[in-house]
């Protein structure tokens, strides 16, 4: 236990029922105070939720507990011992495991390699791959996960990557599990499954700290909830004593987003259409099989489905990122032979599934990121019009409430939700004709979610067509004019949001109907 020896006083703290105690933690980054005097107490073998608006400092606090950041002041005690983790390996040795908000996986390594990395079972330095495989398989079955251990990560969908991350932590035998927005891309059934499994772990003595913006889920599964606002703790409450509204109020001091009835009408002209669209797969199975649909002017068509049922490939095919068979039409003209750029010119915009992988240049400044795809409008001759580009970025920051010191900082300093707002803003700012939006509010807090929904509705009323892919059923039900359910690469059902419920959707999504 190298962690303990680092700086541990042998004094057992008074309330040893608390497995984790963070006291008066402060942490500032250049220009921002991420945590100011935060305290957090987590009881052993419980599920403890942390909620708070985007940029409130949740991830930062958890990274401090995991040894990735060093606090400016304050103390951490784990298991009653005051410690100081200088690196993640010390935290891991002390039994802390963390699943990060943005996946920390090596794309070209296999699932198995990613899971065992850093804690490899070996015999005199040689990997015991057989043993490792057996152990991982055991853990996977114990929490009901099925996954091919020999695939490279690059071939997995977001949901499966999430599972790999969780397996990774469990493989290290973590006693304290930190999950930073583990459910952001999972549909309710998967969330239920995940939490049933996590409950099993809690029963064996594991403690779970998890961060989420989905308040229903927080209320349903947690034993205690800590609310953070602008870097300090507001309160720790029991789920019984609050409801969504109250939580939201404590978080952002504003009302819950609501889905008002739409007063405008869906237009008549078809703006986006796909006929018999098929994306050929590597094996005999096609990720997208014979999909046909159209989206009219001013219409929002929601696509619901468990991650990995072809939504990703469908979006890529519409955009031209992968080859497909069948036809794709924009405003009546066949675009299936056109390049991506030409399709974008015809008015297509895309909010990608994974903001960090497909949406942002993390090392580049915000204004450069918001410039992407709009270089033509924001340049003078061959030169980029710096003033105009920065101006347009400032507009996005203001309109979408991106919390940031200015538009010059690199994208990685933004909190996850604020990165998402920037990506959404970039795509809505230019008033596209057709928006393909994948998880547009992934990781965005309830307050900002309302704002993004409002923006999408406003653009819709102005005639924009939207294809909305989302794991958030409330979002799909609340925004869409029509819902398509994708299962196994095909459209399994078309539903009317007025009569559909999450339960009905869930049945189609899992193919039980």
């Amino acid at each position, binding site marked *: 236990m190298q962690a303990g020896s680092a700086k541990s006083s042998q004094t057992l703290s008074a309330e040893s029922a608390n497995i984790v105690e963070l006291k008066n933690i402060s942490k500032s*980054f250049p220009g921002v105070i991420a945590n100011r005097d935060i305290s957090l107490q987590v009881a052993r073998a419980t599920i403890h939720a942390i909620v708070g608006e985007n940029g409130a400092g949740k991830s930062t606090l958890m990274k401090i507990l*995991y040894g*990735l*950041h060093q606090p400016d002041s304050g103390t951490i005690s784990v298991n009653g011992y005051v410690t100081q983790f200088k*690196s*993640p*390996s*010390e935290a*891991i040795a002390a039994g802390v495991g*963390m699943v*990060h908000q943005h996946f*920390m*996986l*090596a*794309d*070209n*390594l296999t699932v198995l*390699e*990613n899971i*065992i*990395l*850093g*804690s*490899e079972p*070996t015999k005199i*330095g*040689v*990997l015991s*791959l057989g043993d490792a495989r057996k152990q991982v398989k055991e853990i996977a079955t114990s929490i009901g996960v099925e996954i091919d251990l020999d695939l490279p990560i690059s071939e997995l969908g977001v949901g499966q990557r999430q599972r790999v991350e969780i397996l*990774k932590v469990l493989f290290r035998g973590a006693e304290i599990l930190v999950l930073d927005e583990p459910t952001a891309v999972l549909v309710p059934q998967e969330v239920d499954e995940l939490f049933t499994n996590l409950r099993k772990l809690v029963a064996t003595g594991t403690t779970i700290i998890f961060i989420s913006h989905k308040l229903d889920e927080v209320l349903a599964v947690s034993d205690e909830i800590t609310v953070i606002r602008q870097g300090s703790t507001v309160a720790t409450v029991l789920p019984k004593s609050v409801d969504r509204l109250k939580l939201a109020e404590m978080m952002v001091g504003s009302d819950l987003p609501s889905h008002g009835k739409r007063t405008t009408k869906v237009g008549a002209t078809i703006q986006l259409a796909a006929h018999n669209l098929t994306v050929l797969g590597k094996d005999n199975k096609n990720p997208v099989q014979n999909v046909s649909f159209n989206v009219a002017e001013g219409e929002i068509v929601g696509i619901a489905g468990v991650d990995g049922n072809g939504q990703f490939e469908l979006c890529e095919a519409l955009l031209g990122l992968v080859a497909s068979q069948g036809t794709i039409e924009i405003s009546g003209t066949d675009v299936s032979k056109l390049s991506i750029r030409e399709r974008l010119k015809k008015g297509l915009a895309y909010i990608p599934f994974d903001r960090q992988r497909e949406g942002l240049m*993390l090392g580049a400044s915000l204004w450069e990121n918001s410039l992407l795809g709009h270089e033509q409008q924001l340049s003078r001759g061959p030169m980029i019009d710096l003033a105009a580009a920065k101006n347009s970025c400032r507009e996005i920051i203001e309109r979408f409430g991106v919390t940031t010191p200015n538009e010059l900082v690199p994208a*990685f*300093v933004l909190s996850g939700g604020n990165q998402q707002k920037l990506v959404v803003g970039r795509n809505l700012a230019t008033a596209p004709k057709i928006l393909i939006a994948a998880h547009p509010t992934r990781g965005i807090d309830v307050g900002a979610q309302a704002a993004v929904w409002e923006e999408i509705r406003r653009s819709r009323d102005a005639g924009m067509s939207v294809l909305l892919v989302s794991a958030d059923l409330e979002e799909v039900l609340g925004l869409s004019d029509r819902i398509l359910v994708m299962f196994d690469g095909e459209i399994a059902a078309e539903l009317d949001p007025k009569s559909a419920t999450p339960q009905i959707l869930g049945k189609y999504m899992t193919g039980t109907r």
Partner: protein
Amino acid sequence: MITKSKNSRLLMFVVGALAVISSVRLWTGQDALTSSSTIGTALRLTVPILLAGMAGLWAERCGVLNIGIEGMMIFGTWFGAWGAWQSGPWVGLVLAILGGMLGGLIHAVATVRFNIDQVISGVVINLLAFFGVRYLSDLVYVGKPGGGISQSPPQKWALPRFNLPILSGGEVAGWKSPDVLGRLETNRWFIIGDFGGITRGLTSDLSWATVIAIAVVPLSAWLLWRTRFGLRLRSSGESPVAAESLGIKVNHLRYYGLLISGGLAGLAGGTLSIVASSYYRQGQTAGRGFIGLATMIFGNWRPSGVLTGAMLFGYAEGIKLVASDSITALFLFIAAVSVMFFVLAVLRRKRTQIFVALGVFVLSAVAYRTIDTVPESLTQSLPYVVTIVVLATANQRLRPPAMAGVPFRPGEPH
């Protein structure tokens, strides 16, 4: 974990290639195409390229580009030759490795410790090596018999060479064993004769340095894919952020990776000045460090691929040395192979591949009919052309280490 079908496909491929080259040999009467002397020379020329390629592989696998391989090889040639001149070839080889590691260490300190741009650091190492050893020569070699500013005195000892017993007539405890493959080669039958020539070339007149170099391939594969050290080293080239979040010390691994890379490059240089010749000469590396990098790309950053690529370059260079008039026969070989690719491409309906195969066929057929002597510059560029063609048509996706070349600062927010 090679499956059975993979094995049989490999066998079919080998037999097919043999059949084609054998037909070409019989057709043109150029026996040198598959003679044991050509293959032996090719093998000797393969060794430094192979080691340079493996040096590149180790560096990029741990996440650092290594443009400085050429310079590390120069260190290897100089220190190797000095050691061999002073105290024999084995000491020379060890010093060659150490010399290369010195280059690797400089590269590591520059890129990992001080975050200097990896390409710039590599280029600087090349320059430093070139002028550095010239300065050393001035100090050590000038005035010695046979030595000078651009050349070392010749070495007195050479590394022992041997033939494999029974297969190629090697001696076992004084007993002169039969030369089975040699007999196969001399009959010159279709396929059998070529098989004999090629295998005899690979098993006779071997230097221990060659054996060591070839052993580097499986050893590296084993280290990188079967040991904890290897997995961690690859992870720091694929996703240093993920590795760090699991408590892995990325920068330490990059130091190790670059030391190994430098050592291999140094050994590559050593084989040039100790095995392939018996003295150090300025410009001895002749761009082989860069050819090595090409084989690394050709080989998709895998040891077996690097070996294949290096053999291709080695063969092209070998045939140029041993039998330069056989080169025109190679055009016929390329034409025949492109016909095979053409058929495959038609079967698989890959349009670009059909056109490329057709184009290569026409070009090589025309070249075969019209060209008698191939200009030096063309033969020298042949390996590069082959690499470009193969890279352009490779149907397997290239998988370079994802974060090779991207600086990593531990402990910084990401």
